[in-house]
């Protein structure tokens, strides 16, 4: 239904006039997120200040059959928060309070708009640790992280956002507010409903509050940088480390194109002449860290590492990790448009996948920069192109299709941590098969029969 003046007026009654934006200059900057090539104009952007206001907005929308796209900081990488159709954007950045850190239960309670990095900062005051660290952690919101089930550099050892969500407050598509989960470590009362909403990309409900699990902060950390003449050697190193039953906290891979772009931005002295590098980090008990670091160093050397350097101190480690987090954006230095993929394969298949990506790009005469969280099999081949060059964009799509087909043939997934959103929905059925795909749609229809929450995302 079109969004008429009277509905805007009702929205202003709910959240206050200053918290409803409708002018073109205000709304246009909410037409995109961190994903390339997806853009659409919303009718209005609304900033609720609390859960009750979110629920009231959703009720109003449900009453008038208006769709809602929920948004945090808009750093998503699959187009999940790009407006669709004639919709209102619910932007939750102002609900950003960290409500409680409970050291007795090792939990943290926060509103959905709290910034991911601030959550870990609040935990660290108590000597605690919130491990998930997506690349955009300095600005991404925890609500967005839950909706996308975001990963990060530490996924290999510490898992992803889902592994830290103990409870949620969710506004359902009809405006009801429900609470799922609790501070209990064990809870098998019925279906694990909270898990349905984690990673649901804003299509089933709106997460307004989270209860997170915290860990003790690791006592020690050691960061190493291994350089390689051949990309495959780096991939083999990762497979060998995993096969040796070592679980470091980070095993990041950067190919030469990515290294050069990151170095051009961060200027931290990365070796720009090697074919690939691995950023390896182990954390935990001091003795265990020393032992693991030594073993990883030996494995890297045995698998053709040209050189392995150890970060001198915490500051240097942090610089390396921060530089790595800029990889995706730094690749944008090369060409006007960066198309980022998120394919993930079982770790034994990494070397095959890395060579396949390079060969595919070559075959289609495309520039690609590949980096990724190799330790968990998650790769980010990034095509450097220009959206205005239709011929080249066509070749990019052909290459993507081939990469997806190969990924699935190797037993992988089309997205490890970015979500399906708009960017990957064309391949979802291919991965899931008809029955699983239809089951997923049935769930959506059951919870949101009128297709009001984030319509057109994940599937049509």
């Amino acid at each position: 239904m079109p969004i008429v003046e009277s509905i805007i007026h009702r929205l202003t009654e709910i959240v206050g006039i200053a918290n409803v934006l409708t002018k073109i200059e205000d709304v246009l900057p909410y037409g995109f997120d961190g994903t390339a090539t997806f853009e659409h104009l919303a009718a209005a952007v609304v900033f609720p200040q609390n859960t009750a206001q979110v629920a009231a907005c959703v009720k109003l929308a449900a009453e008038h059959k208006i769709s809602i796209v929920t948004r945090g900081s808009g750093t998503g990488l699959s187009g999940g928060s790009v407006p669709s159709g004639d919709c209102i954007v619910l932007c939750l950045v102002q609900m950003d309070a960290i409500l409680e850190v409970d050291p007795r239960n090792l939990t943290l309670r926060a509103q959905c708009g709290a910034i991911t990095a601030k959550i870990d900062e609040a935990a660290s005051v108590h000597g605690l640790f919130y491990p998930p660290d997506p690349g955009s952690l300095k600005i991404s919101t925890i609500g967005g992280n839950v909706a996308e089930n975001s990963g990060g550099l530490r996924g290999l050892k510490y898992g992803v956002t889902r592994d830290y969500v103990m409870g949620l407050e969710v506004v359902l598509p009809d405006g009801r507010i429900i609470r799922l989960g609790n501070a209990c470590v064990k809870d098998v009362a019925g279906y694990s409903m909270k898990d349905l909403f984690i990673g649901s990309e804003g299509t089933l409900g709106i997460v307004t509050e989270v209860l997170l699990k915290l860990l003790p902060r690791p006592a020690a950390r050691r960061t190493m940088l291994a350089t390689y003449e051949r990309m495959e050697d780096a991939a083999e190193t990762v497979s060998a480390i995993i096969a040796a039953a070592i679980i470091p906290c980070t095993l990041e891979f950067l190919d030469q194109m990515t290294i050069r772009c990151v170095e051009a931005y961060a200027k931290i002295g990365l070796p720009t002449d090697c074919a690939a590098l691995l950023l390896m980090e182990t954390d935990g008990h001091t003795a265990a860290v020393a032992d693991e670091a030594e073993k990883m160093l030996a494995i890297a050397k045995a698998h053709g590492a040209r050189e392995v350097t150890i970060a001198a101190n915490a500051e240097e480690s942090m610089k390396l990790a921060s530089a790595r987090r800029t990889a995706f954006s730094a690749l944008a230095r090369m060409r006007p448009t960066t198309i980022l993929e998120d394919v993930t394969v079982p770790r034994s298949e990494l070397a095959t996948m890395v060579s396949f990506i390079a060969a595919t790009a070559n075959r289609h005469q495309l520039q690609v920069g590949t980096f990724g969280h190799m330790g968990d099999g998650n790769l980010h081949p990034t095509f450097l192109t220009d959206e205005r060059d239709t011929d080249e964009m066509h070749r990019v799509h052909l290459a993507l299709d081939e990469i997806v087909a190969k990924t699935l043939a190797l037993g992988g997934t089309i997205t490890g941590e970015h979500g399906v959103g708009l960017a990957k929905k064309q391949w979802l059925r291919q991965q899931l098969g008809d029955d699983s795909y239809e089951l997923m749609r049935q769930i959506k229809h059951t919870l949101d029969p009128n297709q009001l929450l984030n319509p057109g995302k994940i599937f049509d």
Partner: protein
Amino acid sequence: MAYKLKELDYSILQQCMHCGMCLPTCPTYDTTKRERNSPRGRIALMRAVADDKISITQEFADEMSYCLGCLACETACPAGVNYAVLFETARSDIEQSKINNSLTRNFWRFLTLRGLFMHPRALRSAAVLLRWYQQFGIQSLVRKCHLTTFLPANLRRLEPQTPRICRKFSHQLIAAYENPMEPTTYRVALLTGCMQDLTFSDVNRDTADVLLANHCSVHTPPVQPCCGSLHGHNGETELAARLARRMIDLMPPENFDAIITNAGGCGAHLRHYHNLLADDPQYAERAREWDRKIRDIHEWLIQINFRPPHAAPAETPLHVTYHESCHLAHGQKITQQPRELLRSIPGVILTELPESNWCCGSAGVYSITQPEQSANLLDRKVKHILATGADVLATSNPGCHLQIAAGLECAGSTITLIQPITLLARAYRNEKKIPITS
């Protein structure tokens, strides 16, 4: 250089891939949490103008005026977006659309941008009038009689912050040509600036002294035009280009090893004359040469391996904290050199200032055009400075200097503001007073 967004090389707009890395570093986004007040939001609006999706509206003009132009987003941007060019082109486009025109605004812009800041002698004469006004008690009389109520509201509020005009300007303190006592290794030209010349000419003298102490012969033309940064930041690209040509003629870059600037705000503009003059066949190559020769004083001293002083600038140890001028830190990426310089001075204990590279709200004429946001940023800056417990705040841009001094005074603080180069100059001077031990 493009004067309109539509004429701009489109790839500069496309460079922004809207990843959002800039958001947490943008002072206006931090205040409002609205995308339009963020770098990527503003770039989206600029791109929409270039794409003919929106026209230059009042809202668009207001937004570009709300941007500080602090360039913190450039430091944060891994994709290397040239925000400075985008921002200046947007402001130039706005000026040409005449959407902001009003009698008062036109008058002030004519008086300052086309008048005083195009004619250095007129600017100094106006400053002399202001000096008399301050010297002969007229200012206090005006204040006592509440005559300031006749000023426009923005200026009335800022009147107490009117900078103290120096008794002598740079040309009365520095000879056109000065040679070091010891053999000359480098020939440099010294830019004396506008605000720096009128209100901190002693800092220019200090800069010359430090250069002389480091084997540089110093050429300081007595009458120097504005470098054009004021014009560039305020959408007067054509005037900025004219000033760039005058500057190049006055200090031919081929004659010097370096052209030295000591004001962060000027330096960021001075380094990009080739952007302004790229289409001028007579000046394009010389502009490139000029850009290659421009050095911030701190950068230059570190580059030439300056001699650390062996005396202290004061009798007792000084606890110093350092505020970074935006256009020094973000515009010129000079962050470590001033700190290194401060650390080299005996008797200086340097404490880091939290958020040292967060804008103080001065930002050219921002305190006049956006008083509320400017005051917010100043409060935030002053709180951080007070929390360090320092006795001295070092900063190297006259705009920051005046703004923060006013903020500290308002907070009843006794912290003194000194530019880093002055501390170094004092230390060198004190060497002559004490015997060298060891």
